[in-house]
């Protein structure tokens, strides 16, 4: 469970102090998938890094599983907008990087790395170099790297934002499958996106942020049934929710 309590963030830029986030409070329950939506520059990526303990908040408190965040938190998987794979390593070695950086024996994770790669359709590409893969495939590999150590918390920063619409829809479905929709051992996921349909399709709740300084404009529950499928996007409820979030965003601007 993640608790944010009055989180604010001000940073120093050449033009003076910039307030990026202002008194953000919400919580993410264990096993919940929460999407953060907001216009670009609203500080949603910064907020994700504050949760991960990669950047300090200027004001307020963040706690993950009851412990205050003071530095990089353990047992978290991160996926960024760019796949950031090491271009000199084969795909499976890139996935195993997670174990190596964490100081674990990568040999013990090799079987699991291959299993994850098969799960996302990269079974035949384990021994390729990243440049031999398409953007969508590279991002799948990055997802496998984030999942390798089976972290209970996954932080995703516009992970599919750079992909074409079809690949993005495909990867949304894959993410939900990997997440274990319907199972009891779901991971907690915080998913930053600027796509409203993506947020609605994935999330249990959508946190809508205002333009800078980012504040919580609304928290919209998404009661669409799971598992969500291709048909979900065509349902009237889906459209209504998307419209509601759109209006919140417009109202906040």
């Amino acid at each position, binding site marked *: 469970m993640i608790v944010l309590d009055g989180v604010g963030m001000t940073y120093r830029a050449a033009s003076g102090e910039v307030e990026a986030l202002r008194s953000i409070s919400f919580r993410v329950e264990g096993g919940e998938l929460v999407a953060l939506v907001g216009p670009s520059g609203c500080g949603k990526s910064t907020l994700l*890094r504050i949760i*991960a303990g*990669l950047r300090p908040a200027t004001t307020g408190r963040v706690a993950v599983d009851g412990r205050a965040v003071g530095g*990089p938190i*353990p047992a*978290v*998987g*991160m996926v*960024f907008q*760019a796949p*950031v794979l*090491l*271009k*000199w390593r084969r795909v499976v070695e890139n996935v195993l*990087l*997670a174990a*190596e*950086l*964490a*100081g674990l024996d990568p040999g013990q994770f090799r079987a699991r790395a291959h299993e994850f790669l098969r799960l996302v359709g990269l079974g035949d590409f384990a021994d390729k*170099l990243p*440049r031999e893969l398409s953007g969508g495939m590279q991002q799948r590999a990055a997802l496998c790297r984030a999942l390798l*150590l089976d972290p209970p918390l996954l932080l995703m920063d516009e992970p599919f934002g750079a992909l074409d619409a079809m690949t993005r829809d495909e990867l949304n479905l894959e993410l939900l499958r990997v997440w274990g929709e319907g199972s009891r051992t779901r991971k907690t996921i915080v998913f930053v996106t600027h796509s409203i349909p993506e947020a609605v399709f994935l999330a249990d709740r959508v946190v809508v942020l205002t333009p800078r300084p980012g504040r919580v404009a609304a928290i919209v529950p998404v009661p669409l049934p799971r598992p969500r499928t291709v048909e979900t996007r065509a349902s009237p409820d889906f459209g209504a929710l998307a419209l509601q979030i759109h209006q919140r965003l417009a109202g906040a601007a």
Partner: protein
Amino acid sequence: MTVGALRRYVPSLALFGALLLIWQVVPPLLRIREYLLPGPIAVVRAALNFSIPWHAHIWITTLEILGGFALAGLGGVALGVAIAWSETTARALVPFLVVVNTLPKVAVAPLFLLWLGYGVVPNVLIAALIGFFPVVINTAVGLTQIDEELLDLGRVFGAPKWKVFVKIRLPNALPYVLSALKITATAAVVGAIVGEFVASQAGLGMVIVTAQTNLNTPVAFAALGWISIIGLTLYGAVGLATRWWAPWADTT
């Protein structure tokens, strides 16, 4: 090598052949004396005239070039790592290195001679001095041009600094270092020859100086030819090493 690959070299080979032909035929027609511009046949004859101890000169010059190259490579990487390691080391080293690099290194050659006497060692040092700077810069750049997110990843997994250095920064720097070494390969040749010009008892640079004094121009040209073969071989070796060790890098 396939026929297709050979065909790629046809234009440059044809141009080379044409230039050789012009060089052989035209100067005599213009009554240019051989001591001013010897033809290619005279040059090749001089290069293969083994009453001149070519192998000894080639050996000495090659030794100086390789020594200078290796020293520039190792020293350059070490300094580059030091610069990239922390703000403090960078602030301490960079101004110093800039001063050293702006010195006309050729002018330092007589000093090395004064300090170290005749022989291979001062020429190795000059070769290294001329060639090391690009390696420093490229190493430092290669070590620091890392996606911010990769570094975040290191922190997320709690990796210590040395581990991020070994697993991410160093391999990232490899193509940068190798491309700097191409420049160093050519610079080391210049350095070794300059050193031999200033003072030496052997080496291809000395052959050129001696041949010039004796107006034995074909021998000077022949020495130039041998130098160029050494330089091309070293350059080619670095190119091969790049393809071997850093196949992910863009080839240039």
